[in-house]
């Protein structure tokens, strides 16, 4: 058994995502009570040496008993930690994190450095992530290495053998997915891009680096894209398309002019412009165009990180393409099953035609005639034929039948509505865009079925939290959104309770939502927290909607790059968390992607690719919850 260092024990105690061997996971349950200390620990690696050491020592003194080590044990570990990151905390592989660039690369290098810093997970959090991943994926990695070797060698026999020898379901799923990728490609260009890695040797024995590979590949892709765009532009554009194109070009030209204007003395302004330009291109899936533009400027220093950004984009799009192809395959399979069922049914009908009184005769309407005839005979035999034959009663009978049918129809509709799994709540909350004056927010929320309890003050404003809740609810429940209807307010009340300082939340099936540190981490985080927790309430109150999500996104295909979807409750992804994150990201994706300690790492800090790279999730939220409303 591996003996844990004091630092590891402290780290495992304070980080709920940790699963370092030998540490009691129940610690995670107590984390909510000491959110500030946990935050301080996770951010310690970003601080200067002295400050970092002071933080670790303070936390060790405070928690060493609970974490299970002697206070004195931390000394040497901290000295080592602050001088030189210990090997067990080092990152061995960071595909999504570009390398640090020298500062003399000018404005572009400066920008990319900035991006790198923003995407850089703090060291403690990253180390925890690695420990978790190592524990959980050791077996998978061994398999994947063998499998990737077989893929590289094109050894299909080996691939099949590996699949047959799979030891667990999870491995089997991964193997099948990889087999699909390898054996039945949707887009060879995308796959080639997604696989570019390491070094290769050309015919003359010269080593070709990763950058060389990427440069050639991206240049080819840029030319292809340019040609494709040219063809698209040759066709007649509609006025709306022309207008949109002109606006886009003007926007990009404005950003590019700022980025390249050496007369602007503020480098941050130029960096921001270049960053915005890059995001514009990425959002339009035109990343190669940037590469092509800067290719001639001999900016080798930026090729690696930029290439990695682009490669990440390609990998994501490739995965989405594969998923879409699998979806098509599923639909084809389903159709095939339906056809088989139809053929079987036809054969049964044919078989029954030869038998007297069988299904064939039913289809010909004979049974109907027989039933009518039998019914009449029965009526006559019972002496009730007069009811149909006596003219004075015909009108009364017809009126009576119509009235009874109407009554029965009403009863049936009421019964179905009462027992429908989706419930019968059609009431809508009526919220104005904002509440004025602010001291009425609480009452207006209550009128719409949402009670707010606890400390309502935020940043000196005594009603700040109530106003933030109101504004967020007003935003997401505005017509044509179905969010309020699905939530069931005002008929099914919700109680929001504000407590604590760490930015956490919890939803209960009884309608109680606890929000800790609401607003303390910024408006976007607060909005996401609130909508995420209310989305749990929607799942509680609309089981059919959750089942639809499960049908569309089985656990093996949950890929949303958010903390709650990927890591919460331990190893994720868990469908209910991904459901809540899908609905939570929808209104805020342009400004916030839910991460904790830099996890999960992804090529962008915000989530602007939600609408493109994760379109099925975006569309689910848009169509099923937000009624087509866009933000």
């Amino acid at each position: 058994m591996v003996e844990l260092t004091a630092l590891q024990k402290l780290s495992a105690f304070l980080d709920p995502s940790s699963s370092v061997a030998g540490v009691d996971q129940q610690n995670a349950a107590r984390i909510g009570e000491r959110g500030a200390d946990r935050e301080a620990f996770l951010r310690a690696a970003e601080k200067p040496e002295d400050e970092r050491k002071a933080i670790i020592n303070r936390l060790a003194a405070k928690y060493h008993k609970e974490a299970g080590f002697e206070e004195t044990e931390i000394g040497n570990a901290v000295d080592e930690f602050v001088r030189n990151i210990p090997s067990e905390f080092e990152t061995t592989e960071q595909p999504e994190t570009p390398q640090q660039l020298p500062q003399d690369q000018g404005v572009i290098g400066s920008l990319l450095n900035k991006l790198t810093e923003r995407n850089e997970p703090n060291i403690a959090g990253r180390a925890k992530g690695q420990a978790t991943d190592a524990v959980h994926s050791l077996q998978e990695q061994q398999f994947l290495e063998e499998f990737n070797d077989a893929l590289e060698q094109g050894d299909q026999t080996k691939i099949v053998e590996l699949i047959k020898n799979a030891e667990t379901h999870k491995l089997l799923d991964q193997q099948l997915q990889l087999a699909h990728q390898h054996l039945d490609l949707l887009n060879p260009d995308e796959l080639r891009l997604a696989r570019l890695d390491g070094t290769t040797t050309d015919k003359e024995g010269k080593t070709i680096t990763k950058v060389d590979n990427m440069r050639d590949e991206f240049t080819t892709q840029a030319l292809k894209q340019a040609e494709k765009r040219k063809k698209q532009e040759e066709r007649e554009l509609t006025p709306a398309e022309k207008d949109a194109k002109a606006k886009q070009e003007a926007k990009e030209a404005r950003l590019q002019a700022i980025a390249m204007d050496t007369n602007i003395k503020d480098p941050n302004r130029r960096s921001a412009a270049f960053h915005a330009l890059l995001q514009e291109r990425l959002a339009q899936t035109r990343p190669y165009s940037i590469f092509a533009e800067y290719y001639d400027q001999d900016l080798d220093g930026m090729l690696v990180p930029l290439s990695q950004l682009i490669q990440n984009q390609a990998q994501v799009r490739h995965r989405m393409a594969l998923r879409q192809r699998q979806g098509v395959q599923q639909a084809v399979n389903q159709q095939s099953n339906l056809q088989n069922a139809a053929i079987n049914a036809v054969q049964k009908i044919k078989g029954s035609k030869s038998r007297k009184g069988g299904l064939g005769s039913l289809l010909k309407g004979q049974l109907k005639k027989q039933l009518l005839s039998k019914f009449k005979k029965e009526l006559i035999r019972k002496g009730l034929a007069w009811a149909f034959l006596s003219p004075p009663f015909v009108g009364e009978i017809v009126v009576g039948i119509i009235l009874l049918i109407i009554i029965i129809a009403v009863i049936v509709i009421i019964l179905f509505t009462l027992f429908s799994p989706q419930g019968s709540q059609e009431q809508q909350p009526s919220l104005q865009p904002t509440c004025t004056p602010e001291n009425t927010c609480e009452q207006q929320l209550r009128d719409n079925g949402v009670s707010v309890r606890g400390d309502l003050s935020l940043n000196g404003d005594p009603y700040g939290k109530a106003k933030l809740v109101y504004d967020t609810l007003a935003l997401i429940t505005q017509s044509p959104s179905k969010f309020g209807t699905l939530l069931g307010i005002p008929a099914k009340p919700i109680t929001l309770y504000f407590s604590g300082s760490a930015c956490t939340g919890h939803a209960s099936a009884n309608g109680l939502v606890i929000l800790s540190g609401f607003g303390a981490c910024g408006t976007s985080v607060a909005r996401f927290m609130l909508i995420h927790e209310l989305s749990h309430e929607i799942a509680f109150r609309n089981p059919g909607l959750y089942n639809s999500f499960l049908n569309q996104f089985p656990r093996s295909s949950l890929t949303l790059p958010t903390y709650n979807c990927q890591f919460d409750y331990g190893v994720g992804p868990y469908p209910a968390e991904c459901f809540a994150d899908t609905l939570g990201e929808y209104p805020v994706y342009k400004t916030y992607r839910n991460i904790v300690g830099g996890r999960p790492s992804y090529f962008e800090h915000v989530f602007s690719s939600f609408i493109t790279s994760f379109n099925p999730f975006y569309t689910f939220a848009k169509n099923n919850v937000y009624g087509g409303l866009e933000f």
Partner: protein
Amino acid sequence: MCMEGWNFNMKKVFVLTLIFLVILTITMSVVFRGNQPVSLPNALPTPTPVGPPHVDFSKINYSKVFPDQQAAQEVLSTLQVASESSQIDDYTVVPFQTDIDQRQNLVYEKNNTAQYVVQEKTSDNTDLMVFLASHPGSQSFQMFDSIHAGSGFSWYIFPQDGVGFLANKDFGYALKVLYFPKTTKENFIQTAAKTFQLLQDDPNSENVQESFPENP
């Protein structure tokens, strides 16, 4: 005259009442026909193979796991082998496809005898509500599935009936149905609960909170 009037009114009432009863009977039988017992064949239906399973599923004896013929009929008549079987603990698990790929019905088999059948419910239903209505005296207890924490779904186990529902109790809506040999609560917790990693405590209890700490 008076007698004639009485006869006339009585006839009208009699006719209208008769018509009402006929229409009501027809309507109710149409509405609730899904809940009525159906006549079953003597032998259970045989699942249709589409792949090369490790086990000869057609020889599996299902008699222990199903509480009645109707449940067996409903589950087994739809079974088609989705992919190869796998091994979990001592069980060979045979997946059977549903109308949704990747959501598969599972048969846990040992020694050619089905030990558990897990049926996915991919469409709207009120299965738990229907079961409760038809088994008013049945004893049940609740267990939790960490996979679906935060969804409102938990397991309602009826050990003496050999059936459990992963369901939202407020709506009687089921995601999955688990069939197993009739047993006691204690025995279920010692055996099936471990196989399916079911928990006695709610993982979504209030002391476990989701985190959102980073501000962009």
